[in-house]
């Protein structure tokens, strides 16, 4: 399992202040990495830099050994898929049509989807348990279903890296779990490199192989969940007194606000 993504001393600023500073990060295929940090700590900016929406002013982002600036938009879309935080659909597309959009970077201008595209889309729908939703209009779905469809669309891109920006934020407990189960399976069974930004610390700690905690655009702590999720780290980064113990069933770190 090689390194698919490597960030070297990446710095990005929106103007006056640095949103990311001297950030070093790498991702292997088959790895599920959680990014934590308070609002404004640079989590979403990090994802955008990796996806080439923003270009870093300092350092470099290497994808499979090549700087991402060397990729065209469609080449990049074949390697990196993004499940963004909010998506609203103003036009009436079926779930199948939405997932088919994931094939965009593979089709030439006047080309229609072929057999292979449909096979890929079928797998993506099956992996995300969206097959039975296929015909439904996207805007009629619940939040959890919609999130699964967006993950299916990302899978249809056949990426090597999938980025997710708070995929569980508006979901209830069952759907949160379902999404993380899915991400875990995708990383460990299919070799996808997954980076997930989340505010659900306990949940992320239970599923992620590794965690990165950001503070003011820098990495404050990184490593296995039990090393990153400590009362002192959380107090320092989030400015909030907590106690951390182990979940009696899963043994993963559990955060309680005091």
């Amino acid at each position, binding site marked *: 399992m090689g390194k698919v993504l490597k960030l070297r001393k990446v710095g990005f600023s929106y103007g006056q202040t640095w949103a990311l500073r001297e950030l070093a990060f790498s991702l292997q295929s088959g790895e599920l990495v959680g990014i934590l940090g308070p609002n404004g700590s640079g989590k979403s900016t990090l994802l955008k830099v990796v996806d080439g929406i923003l270009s870093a002013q300092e350092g470099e982002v290497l994808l499979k050994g090549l700087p991402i600036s060397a990729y065209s938009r469609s080449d990049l879309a074949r390697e990196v898929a993004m499940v963004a935080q909010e998506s609203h659909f103003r036009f009436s597309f079926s779930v199948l049509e939405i997932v088919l959009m994931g094939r965009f970077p593979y089709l030439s*201008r006047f080309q229609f*989807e072929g057999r292979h595209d449909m096979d890929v889309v079928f797998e993506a729908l099956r992996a995300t348990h969206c097959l039975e939703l296929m015909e439904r209009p996207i805007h009629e779905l619940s939040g959890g279903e919609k999130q699964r469809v967006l993950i299916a669309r990302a899978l249809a891109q056949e990426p090597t890296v999938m980025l997710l920006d708070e995929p569980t934020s508006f979901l209830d407990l069952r759907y949160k779990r379902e999404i993380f189960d899915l991400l875990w399976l995708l990383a460990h069974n299919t070799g996808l490199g997954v980076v997930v930004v989340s505010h659900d610390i306990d949940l992320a700690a239970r599923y992620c192989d590794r965690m990165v905690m950001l503070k003011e655009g820098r990495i404050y702590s990184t490593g296995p969940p039990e090393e990153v999720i400590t009362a002192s780290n959380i107090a320092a980064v989030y400015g909030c007194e907590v106690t951390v113990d182990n979940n009696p069933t899963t043994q993963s770190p559990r955060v309680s606000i005091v």
Partner: protein
Amino acid sequence: MGGIGSNIMPRTTIKRPLAPMKLIRISLILCLFLFLVIVFSLLLGTAKVSMNQLWCLFVGSPKANEMVKLIVFKIRLPRIVLAGITGFSLSLGGVVFQALLRNPLADPFILGVSSGGALGAVIGIILGLGFGLGIPLMSFAGALLAIYLVLVMGRRKIGMESSTILLAGVIINAFFTSIIMFFIATSANDRLHTMLFWLYGDLSQSLYSQSLVIGPVLFIGFIILFGLARHLNVITAGEETALHLGVNVERAKMICFLVVSLIIGLVVSFSGLIGFVGLIVPHLGRMAFGSDHRVLLPVSSLGGAVFLIAADTIARTVISPSELPVGVITAFIGAPFFVYLLKTRGSGWARS
């Protein structure tokens, strides 16, 4: 890909929602409609033309009446052809604007693009330019200016999603129309005085030569836009999403705006301000065939041609022997339709 549960469920495959054959079939059906409405329109009018006479004319029978020949080929057909081309263009423009601005209420007329084109044409006429190249170029410039103003005025930090963009269009429309009126009122140019009628959209002065100017541009423009149909699909899901999916959003938008401005500018310089076609027809297209632009572009364009030929037939027959400007008919249908859309859909499109 591919690992999860692949040995649990048998591998079945799913049918693609849009096959090329389906697209061709739908287009052919609409072409049939177009043919029927053309025949119908050739028959209707102040002077009577019978089906039999029309048949004789087209098969070149010696029984063909000279008078009927004149009416059909010199009066009605050039007008029908221009009406078809105009409807095709306006509706095409509507679909593209709706996708790019992600607003189902956008239309070349409502956004002020038509009046921008008209203003360009009026200035061209005052400057004494010709209809061959000078006036169409001025119209193109006017339409482009209108789009630019709409985009600048409607731009907000969150993107182009609000109804601000429609308000910007309404304001630009009012402003440009008043400038046109000013020129018409103050100019000594005889040609301009006939253009008062033209402010409401008028096809009564149609010539084959006008269609010959627009036709090739429209053909090439349509091919270019059709090549961007999947880009438009993805852009309706949001510009950032489109970037994630590999769309070069800025370039796609630029090409679309240029092509549509050129087409609308040309059309407006010949037929005047005909509103709401680009609103009504794409809406019906979406209801019938969904939102995939590979279907929506041909369906709406052909549908727009059918619609405007029908509307123009009504315009020239309803108070026969007098005539109405065709824009009166389209606005009469379109304005209530706009209100209906606003009430039921808001500025979003969610079919429920």
